[in-house]
């Protein structure tokens, strides 16, 4: 299925769940409300139209510093495409950041689904607020979500309701805080032994 028809199929099944959607370079993205996550995920996995049996990735983004700092100067001259070159034909222009800054939630949990049989993929985004950072766990549907959700908990402090074993996976139990949050100082060290060097 193409990106546009994927979005259309999701919209038909869950008309009130979609907060937004866009396609970019053949990749479809849907932003959904948190309450519908489990239903949509189950449909994506089991509906014969989607058959998304593979959860490729599950991660999160902290938008609290987004747009506040200009890109580092070295980035502009590094050859990294900050924005697509005008020489590349682009049927789907970059849609820009998902929402204006004032209404943006602090975190977005990002899911990448892929169908091994139908060879199509969909990105699902769920916005969560800082004070209520909790979404439903998908570990009952995809066993691979177990460790990915533990990683998101460890790095961002987003909880997953119904997760069987939600504890840190990369950092040690004594670690305080969540290091990929933008308000965690990048070099704040919490050594188990030795000085705070």
């Amino acid at each position, binding site marked *: 299925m193409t990106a546009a028809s994927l979005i259309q199929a999701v919209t038909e099944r869950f008309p009130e769940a979609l907060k937004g959607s866009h396609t970019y370079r053949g990749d479809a993205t849907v932003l959904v409300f948190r309450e519908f996550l489990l239903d949509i995920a189950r449909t994506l996995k089991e509906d014969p139209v989607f058959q998304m049996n593979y959860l490729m990735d599950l991660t999160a983004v902290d938008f609290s510093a987004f747009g506040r700092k200009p890109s580092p100067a070295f980035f502009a001259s590094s050859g990294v495409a900050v924005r697509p070159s005008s020489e590349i034909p682009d049927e789907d222009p970059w849609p820009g950041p998902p929402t204006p800054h004032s209404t943006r939630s602090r975190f977005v949990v990002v899911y990448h689904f892929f169908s091994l049989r139908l060879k199509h993929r969909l990105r699902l985004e769920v916005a969560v607020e800082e004070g209520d950072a909790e979404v439903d766990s998908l570990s009952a549907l995809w066993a691979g979500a177990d460790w990915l959700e533990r990683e998101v908990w460890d790095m961002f402090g987003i909880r997953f309701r119904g997760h069987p074993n939600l504890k840190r996976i990369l*950092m*040690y139990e004594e670690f305080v805080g969540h*290091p990929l949050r933008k308000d*965690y100082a*990048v*070099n*704040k*060290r*919490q*050594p*188990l*032994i*030795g*000085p*705070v*060097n």
Partner: protein
Amino acid sequence: MTEAGFLTSRLDEAIGWARKYSIFQYPFVTACCGMEYMATACSHYDVDRFGAGLPRFSPRQADVLFVVGTISHKMAPVLKRIYDQMAEPKWVVSFGVCTCTGGFYDNYATVMGIDTIMPVDIYIPGCPPRPEYVLDGLLKLQAKIQAQHASGQRPAPELRPPEVEGHVSTERRLRPERGDGVERRKQ
């Protein structure tokens, strides 16, 4: 020199000679420096020429700890325990710039040099160090072992080599806001 003193110094020399040509290393390999370690150990550069060809994967049987690669704060207690389990006499080689100073990592996860948790005998910086550089470090370690007394008494501990200290102070000078005021422990 008395006769006893002469005999002791000759004995020291003989034991030092035996020790430096029968290094049993414990490779504690955690990161990409391991590739250069393997290159050094294999036949092209052939660390066996210097009597250090047999790695032992038990700290009880090893006498030189090669710390090869970035050490994270989660790993640090494990490394310290390995070091504590080794029998005297023992030496530590810090292989690669990450183990020497933390390297380009300045973040929540990385130990800023293993000499903050254990004494280090030889620093081999480099990202990663070339095999020739490693062999040079090994020869320096052999010289150090030769100079050591058989009783286990060590020569006076060295400070960090000046080039490593210079690297750290340059970094601090460039980014004074990152200095946390904690003095690096001198051995």
